[in-house]
Each structure stands twice: as structure tokens, then as C-alpha cells.
């Protein structure tokens, strides 16, 4: 093993050989017969994508140390067709991947299909320049390998299955009992263009996190707990921020509308909650908790 491997890429002057050797040792790449030169090449490739051109060497070393080196080496060894790496990968991730697919699709057969299609991509069914093109070559060690596999599964699901769901047959819809479901309501243009302009202006001025919380909760229907876990904060923090941003958005739109020449009454009417947006649980309201209670009982009085 040569100790002179240098990391190519955007780092000014490259990464010193001692740093590469240290990272190489940390990664246990030798267990999978990965050479130090190949390891340095992989690091250089990842750094080129993530670091700005001309990044300082210390930043590059810190960046590389922050990578999941062991996962990275395992993934690249699998991509290179290392048998033992595949054994480890399958032992460690096969069941987890099926579990992840089940949690995404919430249905067994789709989950297996989704996971199997990913396995095929990970193994590399297509060849490029005489070599199998494994999807594992795209793993960069920025997060855990398991997290990357989950994200890749989710992307695959969003790309393929959700689009497929929009084209289900009438029979399937009938089985699902949704054949008479009303179509999505088309977005109606705002009656007054000033309302849309004011809203766009206010939304554009929001911080990314505020907009994320607002969209996740009110558009995607995520729960406060889900949003909190994504952002890594407490649920109560999300709740507080959401309350604050909803109030602020309403007030700022009102101000914008006033500035654009609307009267206060017009602005208030424009922002009133549309009765069609109020989620009313009709079934729940109509259902009687005590069926007998609604009827007159003889002799009860």
C-alpha cells in the first residue's frame, strides 16, 4: 500500500498523503481489498461535488472526516462486486430495506416489488464499459447508508408508484370504493389579482423554515410530530412557530392589501376562511353515540 496517495479534486494543493492514509485506516477499506489510491479517488470525487473550488485543506479534511467512511467503503466495495462486502450488506440491510419499503408503501406486495427493484439497481443490472453500473456508486457517505437506502426507496416510490396510482383502473377504484369520489377542485383564480400578489409577496419574504412548516402542515397534512422530527426540534416548538407564522402571514397580507389600495373591510373579506375549507366531520357529527338514546322510550318518563 503506498503512502503517497493524494486526493484529487477541488482542494488547493490536494489533500496530504498522511491525511488520506489516516482516513483510509479509519474506513477499514483494506478489509475489502480497496486500494489507498482508489479510496483517495472516491474521496476526491465526493469532495468535488460538495466543496467549493479551492477549498482549504483543513476544511477538506474536516469534511472527509465527517463522512460515513465505513459505510462508504462498504457501498463502493459492493458496487465493485466484492463478495464479502455483499454478504455483509445483505446481512445488515436486506430485512431493513424490506421493512422500510413496507413502511413506505404500507402494503406487502408493493413493498417487495419496490425493494426488489432497488436491489436490482444496487446490484447493477445494466453494464457500462463492461462493468455493472451499481446505484451504490452514488452513495457519498454524507449520511448513513441505511438512511440513503431509505431515501432512495422513497424517491423511487414517489417517482414510480405515486404516478402509477394516478392511473389506476376503474375496477380498482370500484374495489376501493372511490369510483364516485369528486375530482380535485381546480384552483380558482383569485377574484382580485391584488390578493394573489400580496400573498406571493408575503410568502416570498418568509424564512425557509417558516415556509417549510407552513407547507408541511397545511399542504402535506403532516403532523406536528412528523415536522418536528424532520427538523430535529421539539413538537411544541413547531406548534409555537406554526401559530406564529399563520398569524404573521395573515397580518402581513392584510397590510399588503391595505397598501395596494384595498379598504380594511375588503381585505378582511378577502382573507375570510372559505367555508369549503372548513373540515367538518359530517359522518362523525351525524353518528349517534347511543343509538337508543335518540328514540323515545316508553315508560322512561
Amino acid at each position, binding site marked *: 500500500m503506498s503512502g503517497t496517495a493524494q486526493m484529487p479534486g477541488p482542494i488547493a494543493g490536494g489533500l496530504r498523503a498522511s491525511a488520506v492514509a489516516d482516513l483510509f485506516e479509519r474506513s477499514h477499506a483494506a478489509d475489502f481489498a480497496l486500494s489507498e489510491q482508489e479510496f483517495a479517488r472516491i474521496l476526491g470525487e465526493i469532495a468535488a461535488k460538495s466543496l467549493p473550488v479551492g477549498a482549504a485543506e483543513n476544511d477538506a479534511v474536516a469534511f472527509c472526516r465527517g463522512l460515513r467512511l465505513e459505510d462508504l467503503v462498504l457501498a463502493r466495495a459492493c458496487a465493485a462486486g466484492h463478495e464479502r462486502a455483499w454478504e455483509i450488506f445483505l446481512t445488515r440491510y436486506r430485512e431493513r430495506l424490506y421493512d422500510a419499503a413496507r413502511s413506505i408503501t404500507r402494503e406487502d406486495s408493493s413493498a417487495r416489488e419496490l425493494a426488489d427493484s432497488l436491489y436490482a439497481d444496487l446490484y447493477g443490472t445494466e453494464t457500462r464499459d463492461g462493468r455493472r453500473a451499481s446505484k451504490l456508486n452514488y452513495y457519498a457517505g454524507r*449520511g448513513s447508508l441505511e438512511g440513503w437506502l431509505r431515501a432512495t426507496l422513497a424517491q423511487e416510490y414517489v417517482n414510480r408508484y405515486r404516478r402509477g396510482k394516478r392511473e389506476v383502473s376503474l375496477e380498482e377504484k370500484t374495489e376501493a370504493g372511490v369510483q364516485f369520489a369528486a375530482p380535485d377542485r381546480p*384552483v380558482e383564480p383569485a377574484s382580485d389579482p391584488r390578493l394573489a400578489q400580496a400573498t406571493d409577496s408575503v*410568502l416570498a419574504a418568509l424564512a425557509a423554515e417558516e415556509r417549510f412548516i*407552513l*407547507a408541511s402542515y397545511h399542504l402535506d397534512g403532516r403532523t406536528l410530530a*412528523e415536522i418536528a422530527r424532520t427538523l430535529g426540534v421539539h413538537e411544541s416548538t413547531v406548534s409555537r412557530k406554526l401559530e406564529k407564522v399563520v398569524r404573521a402571514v395573515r397580518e402581513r397580507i392584510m397590510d399588503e392589501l391595505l397598501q395596494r389600495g384595498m379598504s380594511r373591510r375588503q381585505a378582511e373579506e378577502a382573507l375570510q376562511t*372559505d367555508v369549503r375549507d372548513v373540515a367538518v366531520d359530517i359522518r362523525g357529527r351525524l353518528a349517534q353515540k347511543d343509538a337508543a338514546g335518540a328514540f323515545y322510550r316508553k315508560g322512561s318518563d
Partner: protein
Amino acid sequence: MAEVPRIVRERLRSQAVSGEHPDANLLTAFAERTLSDPERAQVLDHLSHCADCREVVALAAIPQVEEEQLEVAFVGPRRATAAASRSWWRSPIVHWSALTAAALVVLIAVGERMRLRREYSASAPAIASYEAVQKPTAAPPAPAQPPAQPKESEKVAETARAPRQVETVNRPAVAGASSGRVSGRSAFEAGLAGKPAGAAPIPPAEANNLQSPAASDFSSGSTDGPPLENQRKIDQAQVKALPAPSAAAKSAPGAESSTAVAGGASASPARSQSTTTTEHSAGLARRAFVGPRWSVSPSGAVQRSWDGGRSWQQVPIAEGVNFRAVAVVMAEVWAGGSEGALFHSPDGGAHWTRVQVQAQDSALTGDIVRIELTDGRDLAITTSTGETWNSSDAGATWQRQ
């Protein structure tokens, strides 16, 4: 939660997504919070506009239930109940009830302590007379005569006495690592550290003596031998068995007198009560055991985490073995790996023994890739060559399926 105006939802939905979608690497790093601040800000900005990427992040997240199950699978059924009941536990009614119950417990404890103090004061002359009788024959180091009104410093000593006495009495009854499992890592390791040096160090006869009424009943005034002398021998034997900190506490000034006073004043009812209490504590200790997490690193090393998986420490077992599976039940740890290497630790990873997996006419081939451990004795291992081996006697004998 306050509703947003309909126009806000419409305009949010119709926002244009700018730039390329972040790849799975960035989304994973975002979810795992390993991105640098500028990168995180960029990804968050994209997510705030892109419903597809938000959905990917949400779908890729480990579901809450799964996380709880993972936690439950690790900590056992006691914590499982806690996890399942987390929702009702948040109820303010429960909080107030718990507060009230805690206040009641404190009141009862204070009342009980006052009562014990009165009894203690009342029995002090009797102890003094007993020791006066015993002094010429047994000649124990004269314990301090308990005054009718204990001073403040002695009150503190009295308070500190109870747990130490509990440990002294109970240690032989729960001899083994389980006694050290209550208070997390340090207690666990302390217990393990004590085990090899004094594994079952109390001879059965002395252990029996400890639990026999004759040894504990100081008030019987037996003439066969000075009971205080018997008790001292037992205590000395226990001190040898105890880990260093307990032994040090035992030899602290005043410890001898406090033992004598405790034995003499409380007599047999107190002793039996303390034994019951300690057995109960030991039972709780066993049930409340929360051990480390175990896993195998990508490099094939067995590793252990004491903080729920946030950080891992490698556990050195054997050189040149690439481990591929690890299984744990309480302090029983089994690890297997390349070329059929199988190791067993009965004490939570402190000591390891290599176990040969073979039957009369065959031996295991390939790497061990899976270990299933149903209890401390029944285990099944699977190899990379597809073999399955079972043992029902903790690895002493094996059957190939």
C-alpha cells in the same frame, strides 16, 4: 391550530421549484442533521418549495412506531409498557395525581421516620444493657452507646446506615452480576468487576448462617457463642466479597458500631423486613435492567453503545476475526463471525470464551451470520453456507439441523 386563508394554501401549492432537486445523499444528511449550515439552509429552502422532496424526506424517515419498537426491543418489556403508555402519561390529570402521590409518600416517610426514631430512643437502654453483659466474654470493640437524643451528625450516620445494611445482608442472596445492574453503566461494570475476583465468594455455609434466625436474632441471648462475634465473622466474609467501594465504606470510622447497633436495636423483625426489602430490590433490579446496545461495525468488530446508539465503543474479543452477528440476553452476549468463530460472554462483555461448534460427525463450516438467542441457554446460529446449529445448553453441545 389556526387555519390559514385559502389563498395562502393555493399560492403555496403553486410556488415554482427552483434549482435541481437534492439527491438522496443530501436528503439523508438533512434528515440526519449532518449537513453544514449553508447546505442545510439550501436544502431547507428547496424543501419549503418542493412537495415531492418533502414527501421523500417524510417517507424516508423512520416511523415513530418503529423507533419506539426499536427502543422497546432493546430495553425490554418494562420500558415497552412505558412507551405504550406515553400518550396517557402526558395527561395533566396523571401529572397532578403523581404529584399528590409523591407528596403523600414523603409525608408517610417522614411519619415513619419519626416513629422509628421514637422506638430507637426507647430501645437504647436495652441495647446498652445487652452490650454491658456481652462485653466481658465477646469483647467486641466497644460500640458507641446510642444516646437517648442522637446528635445531628449521628442522625446523618443513621440515615446513611440503612442502604449499607441492606447491601450487606442481601449480597449473598443475589450473588452474581445481576446485583450491579440497577444503576446503569457504572453499577453494571462494578458488579461485573467484582464477579471474577469473588465469584460466589461466600461459602454456602456462611450464606446459610446469614439467613438463619440464629445468626440474625441478637435478642435471643444465646449462650452458645457471642452472636455479635458470629455476625462480625459473617460481615467480614461479606466485606471480602464486596467490591472495593463497599469494602471501603465498611471500614470507615463508625461503621462497626453502626452495624452492632442496627442488629441489636432492630432484632429479628427488622432483619426479616430488611431481607424482604432487599429481595424486592433485587427483583426490581433484575426487571429494571437496561443494558447497552450491541452491534457489529461495518469493519466486522463487535461494538457496544451505552447511550442508545449515539456513540459506540469497540469491544475487543479476538484478533483476526471478522464478526458478523451478535446476540444478547441480559448479560449473556454471543458473537459470531468469520470461519465459524463463536464467542460467549456470560458477564456483559467483560470476559469472553471461544465456543467450538461441532457435533460428533460434523463441524460448522462458513461464517456465522446470524445468532438467535431465546434465553441464556437456548441458541441457534446460521452460517453463510446455510447451516443451522442449535444448542440448548448454552453452547456445551450442538445439533446440526
